[in-house]
């Protein structure tokens, strides 16, 4: 078992003919992901890496029965690409694109909240179930199947942690990057709920950062609903207020969203917080 993606995932790539889209399509295929279709408006009828390209998501779904989509289209078209996937009935949409305007995402999220589509991201590395399917841009080889669910707002920091886990012989059930933007499709609580219900996942690593209050709400959720142990790490303890630290969502505003308050929220409910990324793997192994 795992969450959200597995061997049954039939993946559609939106923006498959772009440089990024084409490169990562090949990478995902090499990992073993079942990529069944691509969409680029105007490029229908072509082929990329042995995969048929369609003009619309509706058509691609009709022909190939794709059940998940990954989006590599540029920021100005990405919000619409999410809507197109949802409108075509795709249940899982992963949006890699960085730089989507916040007001666009507010509308997209409000639309998705009334539909049966889950969005991961935007501005995220995607999701991987080791040994089954990779729907994202993470380096596949650092992952290995196992009992630890990983959820993070970051990309490379997650790779760092996953790499350390794998080196210690601790595998992952599913690793998911929820994205570094202020408005995202799936938050920590959504993923914690899925991990709690997944028999393969026996414990969870949560990697947060400054900005917003998603971690504080996750702490409350853990206290009330999680039976599985959670180990956390929060990046940005040295970040100054009012400055955006790379991610659009990583900013301390009006004194809110500091690393200190997030760490305190986790510690208050008994979640162990690692002092640095290297410590996460050792804390996790205590439970294995």
């Amino acid at each position, binding site marked *: 078992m795992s969450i959200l993606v597995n061997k049954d995932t039939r993946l559609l790539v939106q923006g498959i003919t772009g440089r990024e889209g084409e490169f990562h399509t090949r990478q995902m295929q090499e990992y073993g992901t079942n990529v069944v279709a691509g969409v680029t408006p105007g490029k229908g009828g072509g082929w990329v890496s042995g995969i048929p390209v369609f003009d619309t998501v509706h058509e691609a779904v009709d022909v190939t029965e794709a059940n998940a989509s990954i989006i590599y289209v540029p920021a100005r078209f990405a919000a619409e690409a999410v809507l197109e996937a949802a409108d075509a009935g795709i249940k899982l949409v992963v949006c890699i694109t960085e730089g989507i305007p*916040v*007001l666009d995402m*507010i509308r997209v999220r409000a639309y998705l909240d009334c539909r049966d589509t889950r969005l991961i991201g935007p501005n995220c590395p995607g999701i991987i179930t080791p040994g089954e399917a990779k729907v994202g841009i993470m380096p596949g080889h650092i992952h290995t199947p196992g009992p630890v669910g990983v959820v993070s707002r970051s990309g490379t920091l997650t790779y760092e942690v996953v*790499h350390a886990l794998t080196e210690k012989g601790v595998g992952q059930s599913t690793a998911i990057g929820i994205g570094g933007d202020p408005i995202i499709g799936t938050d920590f609580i959504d993923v914690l709920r899925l991990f709690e219900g997944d028999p393969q996942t026996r414990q969870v690593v949560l*990697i947060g950062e400054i900005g917003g209050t998603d971690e504080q709400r996750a702490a409350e959720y853990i206290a009330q609903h999680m039976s599985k142990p959670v180990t956390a*790490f929060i990046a940005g303890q040295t970040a100054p207020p009012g400055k955006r*630290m790379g991610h659009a969502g990583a900013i301390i505003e009006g004194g809110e969203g500091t690393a200190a308050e997030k760490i305190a929220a986790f510690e208050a409910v008994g979640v162990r917080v690692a002092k640095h990324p290297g410590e996460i793997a050792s804390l996790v192994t205590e439970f294995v």
Partner: protein
Amino acid sequence: MKLHEYQSKRIFAQYGVPIPRGDVATTPVQARQIAARLGKRVVIKSQVLVGGRGKAGGIRLADHPDEAERVADQILGMNIKGLTVKKVLVDEAADISKEIYLGIVIDRARRRPVMMASAEGGIEIEEVARATPERIIRLEIDPFLGLQAYQGRELAYGIGLSKDLVRDFAKIAQGLYQAFVQSDASLAEINPLVVTGDGKLLAVDGKMLLDDNGLFRHFELAEMRDADEETAEEQEARRHGLSYVKLDGEIGCMVNGAGLAMATMDIIKLHGGEPANFLDIGGGAQADKVAAALRIILSDPNVKGVLFNIFGGITRCDEVARGIREALAEVPTTVPMVARLVGTNEEEGRQILAEAKMITAATLSEAAQNAVAAARGEL
């Protein structure tokens, strides 16, 4: 991106929000001419992108054109929190009987724009939120429906506005929301919105923050960027597609990925150092980008050591190493450097850097310890 008061108010006015008559001056003589044209008592307001202008003496009244020229002469060139005043706004002074706050922000937890109003105008809303949170009324705005007139009325009644001003207030609230949405703003604020002596509403101060990611569809707004918003290094970084924030420490760092870059800063601190910057070179960075990043780091005279932390995925370690070598050939330096490269092509990368006599480390912890020690001359 931050907008100046005069820019924000002009945008508000386009959406029907009443603002005082006035204009911008860059010289004392211009200020005098504007004051003469207005023919009334004026307020001269420094236009700098920081708060606390009034307390710093950057907002003053002038009774006649001569005085306006004198005051403008004193304010122009003034230093307010490190920024030099290059422009002043000369506005007709309002006859103020009451000050209100009206603003819109994006509430991340609710995933909606939220409008806030308070009868406690004229002071920072964060201050009101701390001292008397019950004095702020908030309401969520549906992104598909926009701000409805009844919501504007609810706010007006909620802050105890007199009945004859409720309709005008609701119109201003809707105008402000339109300005917010049409500009892709992340904040739009009128503080204060005043009730004048003759019972009219007037937006005497305004502030807007724009979403940088929305600027591609607002060419005219993008043009309004004040270069002073960022340091020269931050501008240089943006030109190269790098994400850079200058800090006050002594250890420069170059990392791929924002989360990892923050974690790297934190671990420097954990081992007794202070980070000199945040710098994310992004994914798949090529050698020339890495070289630009290193030049920016080394241009900071406080930097006593540099830490490279690269987790190769899409980014190839050998490519980064070549960039570092390239930059070092261009910018000779005696600053000690520590590199930690893991992932795609790490062996090739390490070899290139070993030839450059760089200190290498296997783990992030070790790299941070080495960087702190090297910066102190202990390595």
